[in-house]
């Protein structure tokens, strides 16, 4: 037993020594090796979810009924609304208990689908990342094969996502949105001129830092940024469970009963 312990210790000491040697020479490379990779690029495959209160309200807020307090995730604190748009946001906020599209189980849009408090799964191939969101099992494809945005596009709930790699960061340009989704439960909104540039990067193998720059000249006076952390679900056998919530209104009528 003792011999074994000693051997283990010497191995550990050797490993530590090597680790230190490498760490000091090239910290970036050492960190680099710890993240999963696919075809040389970071591999985001897995089931992810934020622990932030972003979906309650992107901006800083005190507690409210059914809403925990939060410092928000908007860089600088507040969303730079144009005056008319701010009035609309206020109206949305007052009527949020009935108007929030998420209450109907609708596709959440971008970036809300990323920080909505339900898990989503990233399926990654070289040519694309496919995001399946538990709510509605909505599907977003982020193309990483160099294809451009379509020229004659529809207005989509999730927009059209084209990504490329800048080092180990996945940069995604998302546009061609409709004006029907909200950014959170608090009524923050956008128009069909909405444009999002996302940056996805590993902090470590089980943590993604998600940043987005958001612009919409019809609604905001300037571009603004958000930043949330996503954690990997590591519970044993964790899986998405389909959540087609919009079917609940007529669920009771099926199947035929004996």
């Amino acid at each position, binding site marked *: 037993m003792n011999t074994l312990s000693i051997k283990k210790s010497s191995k550990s000491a050797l490993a530590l020594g090597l680790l230190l040697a490498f760490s000091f020479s090239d910290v970036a490379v050492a960190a680099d090796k710890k993240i999963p990779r696919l075809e040389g690029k970071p591999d985001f*495959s897995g089931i992810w979810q934020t622990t932030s209160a972003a979906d309650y309200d992107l901006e800083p807020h005190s507690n409210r009924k059914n809403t925990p307090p939060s410092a928000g995730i908007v860089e600088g604190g507040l969303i730079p609304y144009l005056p008319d748009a701010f009035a609309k946001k206020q109206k949305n906020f007052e009527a949020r208990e009935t108007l929030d*599209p998420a209450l*109907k*189980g*609708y*596709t959440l849009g971008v970036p809300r689908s990323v920080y909505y408090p339900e898990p989503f*799964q990233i*399926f*990654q*191939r070289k*040519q694309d990342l*496919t995001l*399946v969101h538990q709510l509605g*099992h*909505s*599907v977003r*494809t982020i*193309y990483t*094969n*160099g*294809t*451009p945005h*379509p*020229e*004659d*596009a*529809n*207005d*989509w*709930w*999730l927009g059209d996502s084209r990504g490329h790699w800048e080092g180990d960061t996945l940069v995604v340009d998302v546009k061609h949105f*409709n004006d*029907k989704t909200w950014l959170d439960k608090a009524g923050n909104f956008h128009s*069909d001129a909405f444009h999002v540039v996302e940056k996805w990067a590993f902090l470590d193998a089980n943590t993604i830092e998600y940043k987005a720059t958001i612009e919409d000249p019809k609604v905001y006076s300037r571009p603004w940024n958000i930043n949330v952390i996503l954690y990997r679900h590591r519970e044993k*056998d964790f*899986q*998405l*469970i*389909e959540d*087609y919530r*919009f*079917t609940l209104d*007529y*669920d009771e*009528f*099926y*199947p*035929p009963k*004996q």
Partner: protein
Amino acid sequence: MKKNILKHYLGVSGLAFVGMALLPQMALAADTDKPKTEQKNATGNGGGGMPREKSFAKISSEKWTGARLADGQPDVSGFWSNTIGNHGNFTDPQGGIINDPNPNRIPKGARADRAPSRVSDPIDGQVPFQPWALEKVKEFQVKFHDPTTQNFVEPLARCAPGGVPKSLYWHGYEIKQYPNYVVFFFDSGTRIIHLDDKAHLPSKIKLWNGDSRGHWEGNTLVVDVSNHNGKALFGRSGEFISENGHIEEHYIFNKENTRYNYEAVFTDPTVYTKSFTVTIPERRWTVTDKPDGWNFDVWFAKDSAGKTTIEHEERICTENNGGFGLGAV
């Protein structure tokens, strides 16, 4: 700004189903919402309407000799659809909708001139329903055409997931594969098949698409489906499985990787008198095929290497405030 409405739900059968007065403007809407690239890049000799095979060959389970993915799975990823007809009629796929009040939509000619029933065993092609369940199905087939209560509305018409097996013979769909997963992207929901041997979800959880566990046996993807909510009908003909049902699926791919046959055994002691087998033929669609707005509802793009790629419309339904076909309730 373009409004993405209805386009998705107005394929051939959807149109056939809409009241005549609505046809002109709906056809127009469908045309104008087509991405231009789809027209521009359309090449090849496929497409040109719904494929309507009257018969199809058996595919044997055998070893896989085709391409494999890095994790060893046979590579069957791509775009697929059924080859005999949509969900209008489960047991007579080219027979029109049962009790259709419009006689022009009922096919003429002998039953033998049309594709066989999707029920391949028993030989009579009928689901072996228990008497109470058969009564419910017959009632649905009558009241479907004038639903006086909610339960006679086909749930897919309200954007509910198509479920198993209907999703395989509604619109065309895409299969993508990953280590430990085969994923079906239907226009009526997403079905994730887990290949990693974990246990099914707790039986208390009931789902439109059930809970799927699969593995490969040579050229065959074998999938065990449980946790059904029993709510997704097999078509406008009203057949169903209950919460107690169990489905054992075999997706048998041919050597050329151009076709597969779905052969599945349905068991449910509360609805059927015995197990029965469902067989559905499916075909692959590629860049050499012409998008047809239903079985291959896509457009083409060029990647950075100049290779033609296939892209699909966002999968949206309930958000458009109306199911496909509108009148198809």
